[in-house]
């Protein structure tokens, strides 16, 4: 019996199809729309899931093999970094505050991405996209964990990292990244793919990871750099998935175009607003700077994103609506955000400071149109005041944008001296947004955005104090009580970098190291 003769050679593509889509079937004992109940409600029409082109072909055995190899190397580096006190090798302890922003603001989102992709990986009726989404779900739990494991050693030595899970749900500015992912996960599977798979992973990912990872490299943090490098090949897969997803939706039915375009506009803007925090980190929190936020925006969004949208033009897709505003904003937002964090430095879980003269010169050079004109004088003044012992802390609570949840700190596109407010009315109530972009998003889905848990509103409503706290008691200090509820340790996690425990410990430990040579 010669079976070899009857077996025809199976090509790679065909073999992969057998290994994935060949597994699925049209259910008959239960209707398909009950097995995949979320496939239609968003209005996206898919006629033929078989037209899906697999963005990458990775069987599970290969996935385990490659990924395990990466994990072995990564954890060897992390172990060595911890053992050798790698944290003392960073440029300056101010840098560590950028990592606090990362652990509290980004790692928890990696986790939500894991759950959201698990949902997408269950919900699409096509096997091809499901398998790709599940692999991404698995990668995302990896990202959450490798980041936590890398920063675990920093947590042992520095403040501000210690209760990231508690803080992401409560601290005022962390509602910005949190609500972004809540927004995407509470949408349907197709919008999720445009929001996270395409806009976040494809259009904006470089603006998030390149700044943090090259920031780490420039500032001597090899542990974090390794985590970033190790995630790169995952990210490459995620990008091809996001792109295939959008093309597939557009190719399946012309009626999908307006829906997809609306989501692109929404998520590009939503993402841009979240990235304000990254811009601020790049321009102000890295002792050794990589490039300015404006430069990063121009390279990664305007140039690379521009090429991408040219490619999508054949489907009728236009560049995101917000582009004209972001071209103005890129000169301002990082300064405006840092000014806000400095003023509210008593209420956050990391330290703030004013730039040195040398750093301000760098900012002038990078922002010739705006820094000296609008920001330098204010920053110099604050610095002088602090030196005189009159450090300025803002005692009032800012109003937040109903959509992006950032305090109203952005200015009018036409006038950088005027704070921008927009107002909408829904069911007789007024709602405020920070920009045309956010107002637009609100007006399109008011029933969603009125649900937002706005940290400042919640403080006013008395929802941000520990149980048993009496706001009517004499001497009641609302900020102190809110910080306790946040688990922000006053005097350790917050306030100025200058004089902080982090600064002192780092100096002392480094001093020991230097003396030992």
């Amino acid at each position, binding site marked *: 019996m010669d079976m070899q003769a009857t077996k025809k050679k199976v090509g790679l593509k065909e073999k992969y199809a057998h290994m994935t889509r060949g597994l699925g079937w049209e259910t008959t*004992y239960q209707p398909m729309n009950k*097995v995949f109940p979320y496939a239609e409600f968003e209005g996206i029409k898919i006629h033929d899931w078989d037209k899906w082109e697999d963005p990458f072909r990775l069987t599970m055995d290969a996935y385990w093999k490659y990924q*395990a190899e990466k994990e072995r190397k990564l954890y060897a580096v992390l172990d060595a970094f911890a053992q050798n006190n790698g944290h003392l090798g960073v440029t300056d302890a101010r840098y560590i505050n950028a990592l606090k922003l990362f652990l509290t603001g980004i790692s928890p989102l990696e986790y939500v991405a894991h*759950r959201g992709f698990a949902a997408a990986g269950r919900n699409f009726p096509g096997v091809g996209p499901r398998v790709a989404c599940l692999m991404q*779900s698995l990668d995302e739990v990896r990202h959450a964990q*490798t980041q936590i494991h890398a920063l675990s050693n920093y947590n042992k030595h520095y403040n501000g990292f210690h209760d990231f899970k508690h803080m992401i749900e409560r601290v005022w500015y962390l509602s910005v990244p949190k609500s972004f992912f809540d927004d995407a996960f509470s949408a349907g599977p197709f919008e999720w793919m445009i929001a996270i798979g395409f806009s976040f992973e494809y259009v904006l990912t470089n603006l998030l990871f390149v700044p943090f990872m090259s920031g780490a490299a420039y500032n001597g943090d090899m542990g974090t750099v390794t985590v970033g490098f190790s995630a790169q090949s995952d990210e490459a897969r995620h990008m091809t998935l996001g792109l295939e997803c959008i093309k597939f939706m557009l190719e399946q039915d012309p009626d999908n175009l307006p829906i997809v375009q609306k989501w692109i506009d929404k998520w590009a803007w939503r993402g841009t607003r979240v990235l304000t925090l990254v811009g601020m980190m790049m321009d102000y929190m890295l002792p050794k700077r990589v490039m300015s936020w404006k430069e990063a925006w121009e390279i990664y969004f305007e140039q690379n994103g521009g090429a991408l949208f040219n490619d999508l033009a054949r489907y009728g897709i236009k560049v995101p609506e917000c582009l004209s505003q972001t071209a103005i904003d890129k000169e301002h937002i990082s300064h405006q955000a840092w000014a806000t964090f400095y003023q509210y430095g008593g209420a956050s879980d990391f330290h703030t400071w004013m730039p040195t003269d040398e750093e301000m010169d760098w900012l002038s050079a990078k922002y010739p149109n705006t820094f000296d004109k609008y920001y330098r004088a204010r920053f110099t003044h604050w610095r002088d005041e602090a030196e005189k012992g009159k450090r300025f802390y803002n005692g009032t609570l800012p109003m937040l944008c109903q959509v992006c949840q950032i305090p109203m700190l952005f200015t009018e596109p036409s006038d950088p001296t005027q704070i921008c407010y927009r107002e909408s009315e829904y069911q007789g109530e007024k709602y405020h947004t920070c920009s045309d972009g956010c107002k637009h998003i609100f007006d399109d889905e008011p029933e969603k955005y009125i649900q937002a848990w706005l940290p400042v509103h919640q403080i006013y409503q008395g929802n941000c104090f520990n149980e048993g706290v009496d706001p009517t008691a004499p001497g009641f200090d609302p900020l102190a009580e809110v910080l306790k509820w946040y688990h922000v340790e006053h005097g350790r996690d917050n306030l100025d970098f200058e004089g902080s425990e982090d600064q002192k410990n780092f100096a002392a430990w480094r001093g020991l190291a230097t003396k030992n040579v």
Partner: protein
Amino acid sequence: MQIDLRTVSIKPVRQTFDHIARRFGDKPASRYQEGTYDLQQTDIFHYRPLWEPEHRLFDQQRTQVVMKDWYALKDPRQYYYGSYTIARARQQDAAEANFDMVEERGLADTIPATFRQIALALLVPLRHVEWGGNMNNSFISAYGYGTAITQPCLYHAMDHLGIAQYLTRLGLVLEGPAALDTAKDAWMGDPRWQEMRRLVEDVLVTQDWFELFVAQNLVLEGLSYPLFFDHLDNEFSTNGATAISMMTRFMAEWYAESSKWVDAQIKVAAAESAENRGLISSWVQHYRERVGKALAPLAEVAFGERATAVLGDVTADFNSRCAKLGLAI
């Protein structure tokens, strides 16, 4: 400036994150702990899901099982992503070596025709059941509660995909792509597979994720894996069909490992309250009957007239396993 950082001995300010310290005290924590406990958000969510407005994004109400602390359901294997992939990579190395050996030495051609037929008729269509296992576990990973159980369910989902792919390869080795088509036809239309397909499809639309866990991971796997990858495997290896055993060794080992995790979940959930115990026990009873019915015609293909006896043995073992887990069945 060259600094030798290794020589510095410094006292850490704290040993671990606060949410870990609140559970275990401020002492050095494992990577499993830091990568698992309290990772899922629990308290504040901004928007109700459009797809299920009656629930919050992560919500304890998606199952009738009630736990004071969902993190009681820990994974005895302590799998986080790194340790999980490293463990599976080792197993896939062994599997790969086995497939290589079968293919290079043409061992498939040495399999007696009867057993080749049995493998084609049973193990190849089984890949669709595995795919159902993937879907059910990804459902739990998405909509379950607490990273302690949702995390290993994703690993379990991907394991099922991996196993479905090994079974696919087995079909390709035995008979090429035609084996897959025949198996698909059997899955869709052969009366012997229809009870199984009906069961799998019914489980796919089950909304209570813990019920799904019981149906899929405890009962369906608990009865079918011993049947196919232990009893039937013995038939293969004692009848000159070792090549098939070689290609399914991964599954046998995987079941031995993963069932310990499943046991730990059931045991803790059932011990939590009389209500949980009652609920889980009734699910087990319900699905045990359905799985038994679905396996009966398949066991007949495998064991002929001994089918009832073998299935009886499998069920008896399963019952004593459940009894050890504290279930009343």
